[in-house]
Structure formats: C-alpha cells, structure tokens
C-alpha cells in the first residue's frame, strides 16, 4: 500500500470506548499509528504532543461537540478531519462539512470505506496543494455551486438541481476555471464512482449543463475549444 510514506498518525475522538477500541484495532491492522481521545480536552493534548495527520471525529461528545471541534481544527491547515457519527442525516452531513470536515461518514461505517476516505484525505493533504472543496461555495457570475448540498444557485437564489454526472462535471470546471480541459482530463477530474456512466455521456452532460447554466455569461459559460475540449469561461471565486 502506502509504502513510500511513514505510517500516518490518526487520532480517534469518540466518547464511546467500544468505538475507540474497534476502530483503533482495525486501523492499526492497516499500518496506521492510532491515538485515542474521549473528548475535546484530550484531543488538544494529543495534538500538542504528536504530529497527527487525520482526526476521526465523533459528533456527540461530552462538552464541546464534534461540529465545534471541527471548526477549531479547520484552523490547522495540516490536519485532515473526517467525521464519523451516528448522526447520519443529510442535514448532519451538511453541518459537518460546513463546519470544515473533509469528509463525513455515518455510522455504521464500512471499514473499507473508512480506509478509502482516510486515504483520499491523506492524498489531499500530502500531494495536492488545493484546500478541500467541502465547506464553501464556488461563485461565478452571480451563480454559486454548493458542493455540500450538491446544488447550483442562480443569481436570483433559485436552486437548480444537478444530476451526479452534471455535478461532478461542473465541479471539475469550477475547480479549473478558464483552462482548456480535454475530455480525458474531465473524466479524470470528475470524482466519484459513476465515472463509466459519466464517460459515455460527457458531451450530453456538457450540453445539459449548458442548458442549466443558460443565464450564466449569456449562455457562454462552457465554451467548446475545437479539437481540444471544453473551457469554463467564467471567473470563479471561493466563498
């Protein structure tokens, strides 16, 4: 697996000892060094003493809750935060991601899924320099794309829904604005497991996105660059 890197340090913050034990046992078996904390106090103590890469954060904790701690951790640019909570509703997920978590996993989580997310967050902090996409919106020409709720908002505040494929595609565009993207690049940039469906219909998806973005840059937001691919023409800012 991750042979070139030294074992990363993961801190599990959960007030339930059974959860700490079960998650710690599994992650130790996957060559991570695992630290345990039962609340925010203990978490801060460990963060002072150790070079933690990722914090697995429960939501319901005695004292300060996980959302508060996630907001606090957001000020540390070197630490990835994954929330692992029994509160699994869409609303909780949105709150968690808006609080600054890199990912939100509801309990009962699949161990392999957790591992995949941990690795994804590791990659994000280790390799690429971009800050995480979650927790804020992309705005362009009065429009905004909310990656947490997966909705597009037009200048009048109207919510326009996107299919998964359209969403991934638009996310790829707004993360790389004003750059020519080939179909292959777009495929690669579009995250998520639906990439086969996405692959087949990329031109269809683009035309659908254009229709949904009809009012953006007078319908000229996504330009076709002959023989090369597509270009997202609007200026994008993150807010």
């Amino acid at each position: 697996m991750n042979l070139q890197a030294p074992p990363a340090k993961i801190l599990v913050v959960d007030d339930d000892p059974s959860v700490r034990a079960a998650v710690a046992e599994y992650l130790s078996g996957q060559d991570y060094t695992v630290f345990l904390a039962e609340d925010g106090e203990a978490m801060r103590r460990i963060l002072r003493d150790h070079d933690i890469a990722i914090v697995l954060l429960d939501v319901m904790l005695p004292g300060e809750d996980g959302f508060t701690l996630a907001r606090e951790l957001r000020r540390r640019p070197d630490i990835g935060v994954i929330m692992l909570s029994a509160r699994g509703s869409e609303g909780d997920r949105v709150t968690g991601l808006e609080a600054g978590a890199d990912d939100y996993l509801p309990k009962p989580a699949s161990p392999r899924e957790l591992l995949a997310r941990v690795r994804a967050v590791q990659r994000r902090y280790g390799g690429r320099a971009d800050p995480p996409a979650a927790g804020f919106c992309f705005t362009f020409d009065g429009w905004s794309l909310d990656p947490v709720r997966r909705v597009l908002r037009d200048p009048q505040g109207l919510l326009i829904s996107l299919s998964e494929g359209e969403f991934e595609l638009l996310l790829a565009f707004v993360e790389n604005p004003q750059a020519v993207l080939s179909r292959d690049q777009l495929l690669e940039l579009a995250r998520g497991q639906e990439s086969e469906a996405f692959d087949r219909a990329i031109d269809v998806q683009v035309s659908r996105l254009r229709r949904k973005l009809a009012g953006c840059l007078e319908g000229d937001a996504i330009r076709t660059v002959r023989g090369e691919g597509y270009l997202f023409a609007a200026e994008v800012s993150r807010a």
Partner: protein
Amino acid sequence: MIRGFRAWLNSMQAHMIGFALGVIVVITALSISLITIAGPPQRSPMTIYDLSRVIRGLEPARTGLAQEFTRTKASHAREPASEVERQLSGFLARELKVPAADVRLYLGNRAPSHLAYVARQAALYAQDGGSSPIVQGTLIAAVRQADGTWNLYVRRSKAGFENYWQLLRASPWLGFLIVVPLSMWFSTLIARPVRAFAAAASQAGDGRREFPVPVEGPTEIRVAARALNEMQARIRDFVRERTALVGAIAHDLRTPLNNLRFRIAGAPDEVRIPAEADIRQLELLINSTLDYVESDGRILTIDPIDLGSLLESIVDDSRAQGQVAFTAAAPVRIEGDILLLRRLFANLIGNALKYASTVTVALAATPTEAIVEIRDDGPGIPPADLARAFDPFFRGERSRSRTTGGIGLGLAIVRSVAETHGGTVTLENLPAGGLLARVALPLRHAPANEVTAE
C-alpha cells in the same frame, strides 16, 4: 355571572328557546292581524227594540249602544232597496209606534249569506207577529218628523269578509308558510358551525398533522372545539414522543453496529461476507427509520427551487435502475426544502422502478400548485392496500421479500414530506394497469398552523 349569562345566550339551547318564542310571536301576530283585517263586523248585535229606544232617546237594554249612533238631519230618505230592509223598517215602525211610511231602515253592505239569514229571521218574525229581530253591523235608521224632514240615526261598522271564518281556519297554514322557511333558515344557521366542526373534526386525529378546529359558533360547539383541539395536541405530543423514541432506538443501534463492522473486518470471508450483508440490511432499516423521523420534523430551510431540474436530475440518476422518462410542460418553481423534496421524489421514482420496467415522470402546474405525476407499468397496488400504503412500517404483500422490500417507510416519508410542505400525495391504480403517484405541492410555502389550545 355576566360572562356565564353571555355564554348561555350564545348557546344552542338559548337559540332554540329564542326561536320557539319567535315562532309563537309570529303566529299570534298573524292571527291577530287576520282577525283585525278580516274579522267579523265590529259592532255588536242589537234588537230592533233597542234601536227604537235609542231613537226615542231612552237608555237601551245594553248600555253604551246609544253612543254608537250619530244623529243627523236629511231632507230626503230613499226607499229601502231590498225586501229585508222593508220588513225591518216595518218592525222598527211598529216598535216606535209610528206609521210604517215614516220609518226607513237600511243595512250596510254585507255578505249575501248574512243578508239571507236576516231575511229568514225577518220573515219568521213577520209570520209569527214578532217585531224585534236582532240586527248587527251597519245600521241607518231614518224617521220622518212632523215638518217632513228626516232624522237619521247612523251606526257604521266595518263589514266582515264574506268567509272570514274560512280565512281564520286557513291561518295556521299561512303560519306554516311563514314558519317553514324561517325554521329552515334558522336551522341552517344553527347547523353551519356544527357542520364546520364536523368537517374539521373528521380530518383531525391521525396525529400526523393538526387541523385546529376554529373556536366559534354556539357555546356548545366552542366547548367541543376546544376539547378537540386539546385532544389533538395530546395526540400530537404522544405521536412525537413515540416517533422520537423510535428514532432514538434506531440511532443508538448505529454505534454497536459500527463496532461490529470493524470487529469482523479481519474475519474469514465465509463469516464476514454474510455478516456484512446482514449489517447492511440493518443499516438500511436504521437509515430509513431516521429519514422518516426526520422528515416528520419541520422544514429546515426554505429556498426557491426549480422543480423541473430537481426531477430531471433524479430521473437522470435513476437511469441505471430502469427506463425512466421525464416531461415538463413549463418550468415550475416552488418553495421548499431541497433535501426533503429530493428524498420525496427519489423515493417515489425508486419505488416505481422497483416494480416496473417503464416509468414516466410528468410535471405540470396550476396557478397555485405544482403537480408531479409518476406513472409506471408495474402491477399496481392491491386496492385493499391502497389506503394503508402510506402508513409507516406498512408493507404490502408484494414487498415482503428481502430483495424488493424496504421496511415500509419509503412512502411514509413521501407523505410526511409532502404534508410538511402543505401538499398532498395520492396513489391510484391505472385502468390500463400500473400505478399513478400524484404529488401536489403549493407553489408558495405557507407554514402550517400550530394548534393553539385556547
């Protein structure tokens, strides 16, 4: 005390008593006025003898008779017109002891039946030598004086209608004609709040939504409405408590299930794989339970939503599960919670795709509502199950199997979300086969009223 009296005045009992008194007054007034207008001649009967005493200036047998007459003079008196008047003139002359030629007696206009009676009486008196029959009503007596002029003694009386007795006999029926529409109007007035109450009450009591019954109308209805509203509030609290309990249990199952997953991660495949399948099943159950509990709550955020793109995106995302088509007549925007609405339509479309091969989703709008119709070509729902299809944890026969069946909360969530948005959802079997799910949502969000127990 005053309050109590006011409350009583507003009661149905007081209304009924008032109405009964009103009817009595109306009927009595009707009878009295009929008698006044159409009653018998006002002036009392008198004998010819009494008339002669009045003329002679003597006190008649019945005191006060003299005052009914006015005396005038005339130079001329016509001959009596009828045989009756001639006969009566003769009797009066005999009582006055003057020549018959000097006396004339006229009767006013009166019913022929009455004249006939007077004539018969006069004929019998004449035959038997009597001379003092009873006369009534208008009387005009003329007596010639020595100087050839005539003294007139005049008593005028309003003559009765010919058949005033019949008229009086008809008065109850006349009363009937007045009282029937009156009582119809009154009973409608009394029944209106009762009907409104019944309509409100029939909606209340399923504990999902509250239908506050307006506290208005007669006192009895107000009391009942207040009691019903309080009952609704109690049912609501009870249902909320139970829902919260179910949610808490589902929620608390997540942590041990989570640990179980991690603990079996290292187990051999023949143990791990079926165990993980069981855990997944449990997870689905917990998730839909919590979705249901949450959809039951209030709406978190209200945004203007392009409904067409919402449906289209769900349809696009569902294509892997079957053939789905989407049509929209025109863009429709509504106000609501996008996460809840997405769940509503994803559940309905997912449900349709579970049982059918082709599903169509159509969007239309009226001036106030958005209408979404989801049709499938599946087997439909047995009519017996249709009414209960939206009940939480209800599963029709067709969805008992593990492969197709959820835990019976998908449609409960759909209904709950629709109602939280002030909308409705209905299911019906199509004549040609298949199921039609119809969702109507108000275009503008209006928060549902809370019951206020007064």
